[in-house]
């Protein structure tokens, strides 16, 4: 049976925890709003780039001499997985679900005899994967987008990936991140970057009609060769932005739950505190009365 003082101390400690979690929840909510706005503003560029690529790749499809970023190296022995997680924790299952999926993917690829290499973005993913797969790491980034994510950071990562690809370090590159579904739902997504899967241009829409009459300057191949590396950076940027918004959403939900749990705990502790206090008073009274009667 804890003493009254112990209970008081515990109630106070849970109360201050609740203050922290509710503050974190509010911070996450405001960051989430910003992240969502950023994700929305980034969408036009990505969709337009996708359309251009679809047009170009469609007209070049099946031709030999397509850029390697599109056609691949021909092999598929070495896989590079870019794992996007957050730098901070206290965001529920956000990082664990990515790490779990990363482990499963690595295991699956290794079972089928492929070599796997890992690049981590975000400290948590690196920490959690280090023990089992530390030997597979070839690169790691931390504090990406700490002061608001910029395209420049995504481009640096994208260019590094392309550099490694051109040096023949891997054949296939995929990125693993949390896609933002809604504030309470994130979806672990595995997206292939190299070779780039060509977005299907819907037949029957107005686009294929236009395609035939496009003029290209300098040439289709040159534009494609220029467009593909940029597209990679755009995809990395998109993954980062989505992951960031998801992180804030996950943290908001986790902190909301924590705040509620703390509230419940305070209630039940308070009830226990009052009961104990009352029991003590009753005992004291009984003692006094029986003492007086004995006289």
């Amino acid at each position, binding site marked *: 049976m804890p003493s009254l003082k112990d209970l008081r101390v515990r109630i106070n400690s849970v109360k201050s925890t609740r203050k922290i979690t509710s503050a974190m929840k509010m911070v996450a909510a405001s960051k989430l709003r910003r992240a969502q706005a950023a994700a929305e*503003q980034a969408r*036009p560029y990505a969709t337009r780039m996708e359309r251009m690529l679809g047009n170009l790749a469609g007209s070049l499809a099946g031709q030999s001499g397509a850029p390697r970023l599109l056609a691949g190296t021909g092999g598929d022995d070495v896989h590079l997985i870019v794992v996007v997680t957050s730098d901070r924790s206290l965001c529920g299952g956000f990082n664990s679900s990515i790490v779990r999926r990363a482990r499963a993917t690595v295991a699956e690829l290794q079972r089928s005899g492929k070599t796997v290499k890992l690049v981590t973005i975000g400290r948590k993913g690196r920490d959690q994967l280090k023990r089992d797969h530390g030997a597979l790491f070839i690169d790691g980034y931390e504090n990406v987008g700490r002061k608001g994510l910029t395209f420049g950071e995504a481009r640096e990562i994208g260019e590094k990936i392309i550099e490694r690809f051109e040096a023949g370090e891997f054949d296939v590159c995929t990125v693993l991140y949390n896609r933002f579904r809604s504030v309470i739902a994130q979806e672990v997504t595995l997206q292939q970057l190299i070779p780039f899967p060509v977005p299907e241009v819907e037949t029957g829409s107005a686009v294929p009609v*236009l395609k035939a009459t*496009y003029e290209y300057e300098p040439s289709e191949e040159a*534009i494609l060769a220029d467009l593909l590396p940029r597209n990679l950076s755009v995809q990395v940027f998109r993954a980062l932005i989505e992951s960031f918004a998801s992180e804030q959403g996950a943290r908001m939900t986790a902190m909301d739950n924590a705040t509620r749990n703390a509230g419940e705990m305070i209630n039940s502790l308070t009830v226990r505190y009052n009961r104990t206090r009352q029991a003590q008073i009753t005992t004291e009274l009984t003692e006094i009365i029986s003492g007086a009667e004995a006289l």
Partner: protein
Amino acid sequence: MAGKVQFELVSPERLLFSEPVDMVVVPGSEGDFGALPQHAPMLTSMRPGVIDVYEAGVVTNRIFVAGGFAEVTEEGLTVLAEEAIPVADIDPQSISTRLKAAERAIEEADSDRARAEAERSLAVAKAFEAAAEGAAV
């Protein structure tokens, strides 16, 4: 003049410009071209330079872009630029910082790739300077 072109300028971070205008002159990699309504569909890469937006025969807006792509379709002109700054907003100090950074990068480049990259950013910086000077005249 009948009709207008829908001019859209997008950077990876956001949509910067989306308005119907009379004409847009774009610095294509094979030379500048003007996009008027009913322009034939085309797709081109851009060199670093300045996009001029014309409204009723006068330039109403000048925007510096550090390269990218321009696409003309039936609907209008779409420019994808990684970096775009309205010429009027260029800070004179940032020009010299950029030039110096690019020159230093060339000196420090230890591989062909790094050198090519540095030379590219120097070209961008020079175009940046030219754009700012053009605005002052």
